[in-house]
Structures are given as C-alpha cells and as structure tokens.
C-alpha cells in the first residue's frame, strides 16, 4: 500500500474544476475511433463459432459448406490453429484443444473477405461433438464447494454470541448472474507487420493485453503494440485480456492479412465474464438497542474450469463495515461447467453489500430503530477486521447529510402505510463502501523548448474522464492551464501503466503523472526556467513510492437513499427518487465525477429492479444473452436522481488526496431500493431483482393488498 510521504499536488484550479472532457468533441462528432473502427487495407473479418454443448469434446469440424461461401478465407479450429504459448490464463488458450469447457466457448473461427460472408460462414460450420453430462447447479450442498485459503475469517465466538443475542436476524439473499454489457462489444483489429503484432483492442488495460499476446505468440513484449485509445465502457468485462483479441491475432497470422473481430453481443456473457450468482446467508445478533454483537456473512458461489482461482469475494466489505466483537465470514466456491465469471463493477463489494445492508434494514425493523441510527450505533472506531485505523471514514456523516437532503426526518417507519391511488410509496437507505487502492505506474513528462508540455502514460479512458483528470493533475503540478499541455494515453508505446479498474486508475496514474511533472518542474528550475533546445524529458515509476504500509485501512464510503412506488395491481416497482452522498477524498473533476457516480447508482437501480440472468440447467449457458432479454436501465427508468459528496481531506492516500469513484456508486444501491420496497409494501425482497410477478405474489400472500 501507499507510503506515508509524498508531495501533494497543489490543490486548486485546474484540479478540482469541472473541466469538460478533452475527448468530448471527438465523441459527439463520431470521430473518436474505437477498436472496430479501424480498417487497415486488406482487412478481413472474423466471426466466432461457439460450442453448442456445456462439456465434452469436439470430434469433427465440418468446414466444406462454410468454405463454399464466396469470399471465404479460412475456418480455424483446434486441429489447425496456430499453437500458442502459455499466458497463465486458460480463457486465452483458444482453439488449442478439442475439449469443451463451457457452452459458448469458441470452437472455430470463420474468416472471410467481408462481414456478411464471415457471419454466413460461421453459421455454416458444423461442429460434431461428444458431449458429457455437465455439472451446472450450485446448491448449498454441492459436494465440490470449497473454502479457498483466505476466504474465511473469524473473531470472538460467533455461534455463542449469536445464540445469546436478544435480537437475531438470519436470512438468505440471492443475486442472479449479472452481465456487464458495456455498449461496445469486445472487438479487436489485428495485423502482423514484419514480425510485429499491432492490435487495436477494446481493453481497460492494454499493457496486460500486450503481455498476454507476447506470451501466447512467443514474442518479446516490444514486438507487440496494443492501442486502446477509446474504449466503449467495460465495467470489468475488459479488465483482463479476453479471447477475442487472441482470436483476431491468430486469424491475422493464419490468413496473412489484417483481421477485425467484433464479438456478437450474444457471446459476451459466455466469453467476457459476468458477476456470478451468489447465495448469501447473513446472521446478525444484537441487543434491543441495536448494538450488533455478532455478525456472520457466508457466501456460496461458483467459478468455471477455465478460471479455477476466481470467486466473487462478497464477504470482503462485511469484514470492515460494522463493529461487533464476534465475527465470521466465509466464502465457498464450486467449480461448475459454466462460462467464466469475472469482474463486474465493484466485484464482491456490490454483491455482498446487497445482503448485509438488507440484513441491517431487517435488524432496524426488528429493533424498531431508525436504520440510520442503527448504522451510527454500530460505527467502528477502527477497522474491526484488522484493528487498523481508517485513513478516513465518513459513513455516518454521509448518512446524516443524505437524510437532510432527502427529507428523511419526516419518515414514518411503519411499512405499507402510504398509498397514492394504485401506488404504495416507501423510502429506504443503505451504505456504500469500496477499497481505495493504488498500483505502481510509470509516466513521462516532456517540456518543449518553445513552450508547451507533453505528458505520456498508458492510462485508459473507458469513459471515466481519465484523459481529462490526468491533464488537470499535470497542469496543477506544473502550474499551468490544461490547454498548455498535451496528454497522450491509450497505447502500449507509452510508459507502462495499470488498468482502468478496481477504482484505482486515477490514484495510480495520477501519482505517476504528478511525480513526472514535479521532477520536470525541478529540472526546468535547474535551467533557470529556460528549457534547452531539444527539450527536457523526465520518466518516472512509482513502484518504490508505494512502499509497503499496513498502517491504515483505506476505503471510500457513501449513503444511498431511494424512494419507490409499487403498483398494487401489477407489482411493478419504480424508483421515483435516488440520492447518493459520498465521501471519497478530494473530487478532482466534479463534472466527470458526478457522471460516474450517477452511472454507478443507475446500474445499481437496474440491478435492483430489472437485471436478471439464468444459468440454464439444460444448456449450461445464459439464455438472456441480448439486450432485449437482459434488461439494463433505459432513459425512462431514471427519474429524479441526485449525487453529492462531502469535502473529505485525507493526506494518507496519494498526492491528489483522492479515492476512486468508479465502483462506489453501485455499491449499496440495490439494498436502498429493496429496503424502500419493504417500507412501501411490507414485502422483504431477498432475491434480486424485485420483479413484478414475485412482488405481486408476495404482497397478496402477506395480505398487503
């Protein structure tokens, strides 16, 4: 973690200002080029053929019909595809074996002169396989559920304390599989140029893509260039290299010309990761004043044969959230024959906080306490898991500030009491939290002799505004305006930097940019302010600055408030108002930060009410693979929504004093919404999403309507 000493970026304009996005004009005019917007001369098109069964072996690949298509170039499969090296990620070992690990895994790749031809070829390829029965169903009794090392924690004597508690909550919550579905499907355009591999990829971190491609094609990293200049969202789905980029490079090698591959939307759930379903049991034991004495959070989830070490770490936030002397967390994971789960916005935290924050609401009801007072009463002095102090923690302040803004004081806690015509109205609250991490990065800053500066770093802007905020950090450090420098990001030819993920991009990149620009300023001062002919260049790396330091727990916090209306005739719940109040250190660009936090909250709203997928036990894949059957929030789903933040000073983070905000906004939102549904209807939603059929049935069964 972070070292304790570093120079701070001078706080003041342009840092902290609502600077418009530097790439805004390119984006609204359509001139920003994403991975599939590049068409090198002679470019061919590839289309994947997915495995039709969940487990088994490919016994034959019938190519004749496909190769009869005019413009057909090749059908690659395990029997003729180039052999790959080892990239330490089995999802990337594409077309290397006849074994089928999950339905939807790519078993062949059609390559043609044109896109319609490639698509028709893929449909004409006939895959013969020998299926074997897959293991697909997660149950709490699954014989292969294991608790990996580090996946459990215990303090005190939970069973005894829970047994002896005056008030006990013991409930099971479930979240279905959820799909990231960034608007840009994963795409890559690959070409081989004299032994060099050049790829345009939709990735959150192109250095990892370069490393993987170098290992797979047995090249030196500097023989591979990966460009991710503009990326159409990711939400974790583009956080690590995905199979499409390997397939594109392989096809380009096989047909000896550039190849473009854009995954069909329907293959994203199978090939690019998703939030695995979780079954979560939460037990809270408290006294009648709502002081929690015992807290347990146990999670069952699954992974795939290709990602054996993966798990949705849903108990992680619970460890540090509320004070209680007796604690237990445990995550169990079963390897199933399913597509590989992976990161989806706030992995672990988002899942776990739905359960824990729902249970806290249940406890508030059981203790007849206001849910905000209940949380305030259980605020820990230090991180209860590690005993370390928090570098800063303003959860209670967020709750209180939000209560004021939302009009919480007038709230009657009794459920199912407010009816307006066909609608039952209710409000709910939940906490948000996410770790504030930082990763080593490098950066380069250059001063031109004739004036002007260039800052270079392989950061990625997936829509966060990274390009803009890094320019602000550089400009503030150099004491100039944003328009006096150029910022260049999104290519592996630039200084190596970590991915846009884990809410640590700005902290990690910004630290390196600040360091480079600070040293450049000193160099300019050494030249009495005159930049010599040829300019001055400084390249830095922050690895040593980020010396091990376990003194503090660093997390952002927030509070989310929702007002819902539930139709008693249809069971449809709508969010009428949503408010988030966050404490995430200094907000470096309020314009882009606001957008990002709003976006997270809306994704959380969507998780609460509409997003659901099924692991189909007949086919072993998700039937809800497209945007017509998997419902992400649309414009009309979002009514009144607002976001605020507290002025939080924390000198123990990084030179900017900032915490990441990319994921914080989605954490807790779903619980705030379902807690509001309980307040509205008296129905406790423990299984997401809160869809009309289930809600209507529960309201009838409980005699609420």
């Amino acid at each position, binding site marked *: 973690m972070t070292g304790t000493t570093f120079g701070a970026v001078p706080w003041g304009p342009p840092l902290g200002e609502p600077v418009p996005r530097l790439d805004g004009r390119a984006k*609204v*005019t359509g001139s920003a080029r994403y991975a599939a917007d590049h068409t090198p001369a002679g470019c061919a098109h590839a289309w994947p053929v997915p495995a039709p069964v969940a487990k088994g072996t490919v016994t034959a690949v019938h190519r004749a019909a496909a190769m009869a298509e005019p413009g057909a170039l090749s059908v690659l499969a395990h029997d003729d595809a180039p052999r790959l090296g080892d990239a330490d990620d089995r999802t990337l070992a594409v077309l290397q074996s006849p074994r089928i690990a999950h339905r939807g895994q790519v078993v062949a790749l059609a390559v043609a002169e044109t896109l319609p031809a490639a698509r028709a070829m893929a449909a004409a390829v006939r895959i013969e396989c020998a299926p074997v029965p897959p293991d697909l169903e997660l149950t709490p009794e699954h014989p292969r559920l294991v608790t990996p090392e580090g996946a459990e924690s215990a303090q005190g004597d939970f069973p005894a304390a829970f047994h002896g508690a005056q008030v006990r909550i013991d409930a099971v919550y479930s979240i279905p599989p959820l799909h990231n579905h960034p608007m*840009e499907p994963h795409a890559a355009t690959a070409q081989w140029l004299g032994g060099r591999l050049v790829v345009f990829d939709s990735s959150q971190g192109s250095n990892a893509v370069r490393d993987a491609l170098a290992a797979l094609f047995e090249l030196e990293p500097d023989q591979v260039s990966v460009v991710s200049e503009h990326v159409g969202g990711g939400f974790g789905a583009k956080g690590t290299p995905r199979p499409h980029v390997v397939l594109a490079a392989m096809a380009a090698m096989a047909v000896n010309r550039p190849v473009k591959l*854009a995954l069909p939307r329907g293959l994203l759930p199978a090939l690019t990761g998703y939030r695995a379903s979780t079954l979560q049991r939460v037990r809270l034991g408290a006294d009648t004043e709502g002081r929690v004495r015992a807290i347990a959070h146990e999670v069952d989830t699954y992974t795939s044969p290709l990602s054996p070490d993966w798990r949705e770490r849903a108990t992680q936030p619970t460890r540090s959230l509320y004070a209680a002397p007796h604690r237990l967390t445990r995550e169990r994971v079963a390897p199933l024959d399913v597509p590989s789960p992976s990161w989806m916005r706030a992995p672990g935290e988002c899942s776990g906080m739905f359960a824990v924050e729902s249970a806290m609401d249940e406890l508030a009801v059981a203790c007849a306490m206001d849910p905000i007072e209940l949380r305030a009463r259980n605020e820990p002095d230090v991180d209860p898991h590690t005993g370390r102090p928090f570098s800063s923690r303003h959860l209670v302040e967020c709750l209180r500030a939000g209560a004021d803004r939302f009009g919480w004081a007038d709230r009657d806690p009794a459920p199912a009491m407010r009816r307006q015509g066909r609608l039952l109205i209710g409000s709910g609250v939940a906490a948000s939290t996410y770790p504030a991490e930082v990763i080593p990065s490098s950066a380069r800053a250059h001063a031109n002799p004739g004036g002007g500066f260039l800052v270079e770093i392989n950061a990625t802007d997936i*829509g966060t505004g990274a390009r803009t905020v890094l320019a602000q950090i550089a400009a503030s450090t150099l004491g100039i305006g944003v328009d006096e420098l150029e910022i260049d990001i999104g290519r592996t030819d630039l200084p190596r930097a970590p991915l846009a993920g884990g809410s640590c991009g700005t902290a990690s990149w910004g630290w390196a940019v600040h360091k480079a620009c600070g040293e450049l300023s000193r160099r300019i001062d050494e030249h009495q302010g005159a930049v010599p002919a040829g300019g001055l260049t400084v390249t830095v790396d922050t690895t040593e600055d980020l010396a091990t330091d376990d003194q503090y727990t660093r997390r952002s916090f927030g509070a989310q408030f929702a007002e819902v209306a539930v139709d008693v005739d249809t069971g449809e719940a709508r969010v009428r108002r949503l408010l988030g109040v966050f404490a995430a250190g200094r907000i470096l660009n309020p314009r*882009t930060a*606001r*957008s990002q936090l709003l976006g997270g909250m809306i994704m959380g709203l969507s998780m609460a009410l509409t997003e659901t997928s099924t692991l189909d036990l007949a086919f072993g894949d998700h039937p809800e693979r497209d945007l017509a059957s998997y419902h992400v929030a649309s414009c009309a789903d979002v009514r009144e929504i607002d976001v605020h933040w507290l002025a939080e000073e924390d000198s123990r983070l990084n030179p900017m004093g900032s915490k990441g905000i990319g994921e914080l906004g989605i954490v807790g939102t779903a619980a705030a919404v379902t807690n509001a549904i309980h307040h509205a209807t008296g129905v406790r939603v423990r299984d997401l999403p809160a869809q009309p059929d289930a809600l209507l049935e529960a309201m009838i069964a409980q005699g609420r309507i």
Partner: protein
Amino acid sequence: MDSRLLTSAVTLRVNGTVHRLTLDNRSTLLDTLREDLDLTGAKKGCDHGQCGSCTVLVDGRRVNCCLLLTVACDGSEITTVEGLSDGWSLHPVQEAFLARDAFQCGYCTPGQVCSAVGALREMAEGRPSAVTVGTEPPSGAAEIRERMSGNLCRCAAYPNIVRAVGDAAERAAEWWERTP
C-alpha cells in the same frame, strides 16, 4: 454460386455525397456505412435493433440502421453523426451533449445524438408518444425520457442526456429549417 446473384447496385446519398455501390445483398446499412464508406460514427452495439447505438437519419427519420438492409435504402438520403456538423460548428444537440456531459465512454453517443435530432423533430411535428397527454405539443423531460429510451447507455448518462436534449430543442428546430 454466381456472385452476381448475391450483389446489387445501390445509390445512397450520405451526408450530401452520392455513393454508387455494388453490395452484398446481406449488407446492413450499418455495415455499409462502417465498412464500405468508413463512416464509423454509427456504432454496432447489438446488431439486433435493441440498443440504438447505430441510429442514423434516413430520409429525415431516425432508424436503427443495423436492422435495415442497404439494398432497401436505394435512393435514400442518409444523415449520420458525421453529417450533423460541418467539421467546425456543431449541431445544437452535439453542443448540448458537451455542455451537459451527456456521455461517458462515448460509444452510444453518435446514436444518442442522431436519435435526439430525430426525436426533437417528431416532437416539433406534434407526433405523440406513449406518454403524451391530450393534444398539446409534446415537450418536457418525461417526453424526452420516453422517446430516448430506445438508445441504451450502460454508463447511464441518462439524466444528463435528458437535460441536453431539452436544452437543444429550440435550436434543433432552427437547424432543420436551415437544412435543405
């Protein structure tokens, strides 16, 4: 198979420029724009008419051009996001999207912008939507939300999109009048 049976000659007028093309009959307008004319502003988000990222204006109406076969557009007047600005001065909707930060990753943005241009025209013409009440000309946030719901944005810039489209309403109408 005789490849002449698989292709057709098509004439398109795109952003004011006439293109005479011989195309695979299976080509969608989206693929023609992107792959044959290098107009990559319109994006492929789903290829199924479910997300709106490919929205362009065909003969003045907004369409999901991934669902439109190019051969069916012979003789049509097509405006893509590239055709809304003249390279320097932006369309009022584009300006409003910048002013309101109505996007994040930007991938759905060309479709949102074209859709907004079309939606504002529909509203100005008095065409009702599912939320239109009575006979008053449709306007306001609820109308915009309804009409823009065919354009998904996973970054969820919706609140800012609604404000941007509202801001642009008046000047967008002037733009239509200026456009031949």
